[in-house]
């Protein structure tokens, strides 16, 4: 009754890589507009808690995921206000958002710990596994984002703001508005990524359940060279590393579990080591800087 090893690893990587992919895509859009959001971990946690809570309350997992997306959109807009309107340092504000996310998610999720929900229904692919709607939509979402960023005027304006907001402003664009829009999209996707963990994968909620995935997503944006198509590869690689170590242990491989647990993180470090340097030049030039306008 056991699945062939390669198929098991692939299916497991896709499942665990999906939430990473959504979070990476969200962060990518924000960074393309010049805003780095270190609070992605907090956003994902709010998404997971909100998704679980609303699913438990409403009985419908899709409603839960939508609620998670919108809650995180709102949270990201607050972050946007702090960083765009008030011109706070993005890194500090992001970390603050992360802590806020820890607390807010714990508060939202607390009454629902231990509740049993019926999560996102999965469709079986014979020979591979069963996948829910968010998994099926992950690659189309990255394609859509690629098209939005690189084939539409909106995307062009957004990227211009990320490269040189003064030039964009001079060309008649509104950098503030575009950055808010980018953060809204980022929040929506980050929330969906978080919700997939609680409503899609585990059907439970526990404090801090993202376990660092938000930060992995931030690293994956660099690995992806700020391109949504490469983000798919990155999420698969990281999801695959985690899946591989668990499947190897499950198979009875006689390797220290501590070394195995390190594999995904060591892989991320290696990837950043070998490709991170080249990637630096691919970053949006004004990433992390505040635009003060011409007044």
């Amino acid at each position, binding site marked *: *009754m*056991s*699945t062939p*090893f390669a198929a*098991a690893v692939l*299916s*497991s990587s896709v*499942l*665990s890589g999906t939430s990473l992919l959504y979070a990476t895509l969200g962060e990518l859009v924000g960074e393309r507009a010049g805003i780095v959001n270190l609070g992605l971990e907090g956003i994902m946690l709010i998404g997971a808690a909100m998704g679980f809570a609303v699913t438990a309350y409403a009985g419908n997992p899709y409603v839960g995921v939508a609620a998670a997306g919108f809650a995180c959109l709102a949270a990201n807009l607050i972050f946007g206000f702090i960083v765009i309107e008030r011109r706070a340092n993005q890194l500090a504000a992001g970390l603050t958002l992360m802590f806020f996310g820890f607390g807010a998610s714990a508060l939202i999720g*607390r009454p629902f*710990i*231990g509740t*049993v929900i019926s999560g996102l229904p999965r469709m079986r692919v014979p020979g591979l596994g069963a996948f829910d709607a968010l998994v099926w939509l992950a690659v189309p979402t990255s394609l859509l984002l690629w098209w939005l960023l690189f084939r539409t005027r909106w995307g062009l304006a957004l990227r211009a703001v990320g490269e040189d907001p003064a030039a964009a402003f001079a060309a008649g664009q509104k950098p503030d508005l575009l950055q808010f829009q980018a953060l809204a999209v980022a929040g929506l996707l980050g929330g969906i990524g978080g919700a997939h*963990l*609680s409503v899609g*994968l*585990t*059907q*439970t*909620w*526990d*404090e801090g*359940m*993202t*376990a660092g995935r938000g930060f992995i997503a931030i690293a994956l944006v660099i690995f992806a060279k700020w391109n949504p198509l490469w983000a798919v590869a990155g999420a698969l690689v990281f999801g695959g590393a*985690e*899946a591989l170590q*668990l*499947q190897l*242990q*499950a*198979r*009875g491989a006689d390797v220290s*579990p*501590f070394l*195995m*647990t390190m594999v995904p993180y060591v892989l991320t470090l290696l990837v950043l080591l070998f490709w991170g340097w080249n990637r630096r030049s691919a970053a949006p030039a004004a990433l992390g800087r505040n635009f003060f306008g011409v007044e």
Partner: protein
Amino acid sequence: MKRFLLSACLLLCFGLPAAAADTLTVGAIYVGTTNDYGYNRAMHDGLEAMKAAVPGVTLLEAENVPETAEADMEGMIQQGAKLIFATSFGHQQSAFNLAKKHPDVVFEHAGGWMQAPNFGNFFAATQAAWYPMGVAAGAMTKSNTLGFVAGVPIGYVIGNINAFALGARSVNPKAEVHVVVTGSWSDKAKEAAAAGALIDQGADVVTMHVDSPATVLQVAESRGAYSIGFQSIEARTLAPKGWLTGLGFTWGHS
């Protein structure tokens, strides 16, 4: 053990001349949340039973205390706690350090081995219960592969796994236990992936030693595998078809 605890509480209640109001403040720290359907819930329920059974007990609790925090326990001592329950294995060193600093406070640690005049340990002989659970698994398995999701590979966990394996082998010499270590007492996403991986690799009976059995049980049930629960008997409602047997803790007087 329960009798010792009860008499220790009573002794402290009536033996301390400074406790003019005849009250005892008891502090308890948990590594997770108390409504986790598992380990921490069992500890919390036991302490609630103690509070109900012993008059004059005030219970201070702190959840999600990481395994290196002396601050929470120190805070409880400031509030007058004279008996501290450090309920997670990893709290041992911090609790022991504080025991040396506060000789007038009694520390009870779950699952450890360190000893001092005011520091003691308690736990349950879980290995003895895992053996017959292993027998059940060994008898029911058709693939001869048993899956075990372990949180942190400390002594009690390894002992439980070994007892489980010995029990299974006693009725089914071909049974093999595959262990996946998630590295944390409570990482739901990893537990779900680990349980899935064990079933992918052929396990048809899945069990666990993590803080809460809920995730592993749900995954086993959705994949049609048998499951054996640990930490909580109530969790059997999560696996109505696949639950074979299980073990829960009742720390308080029932």
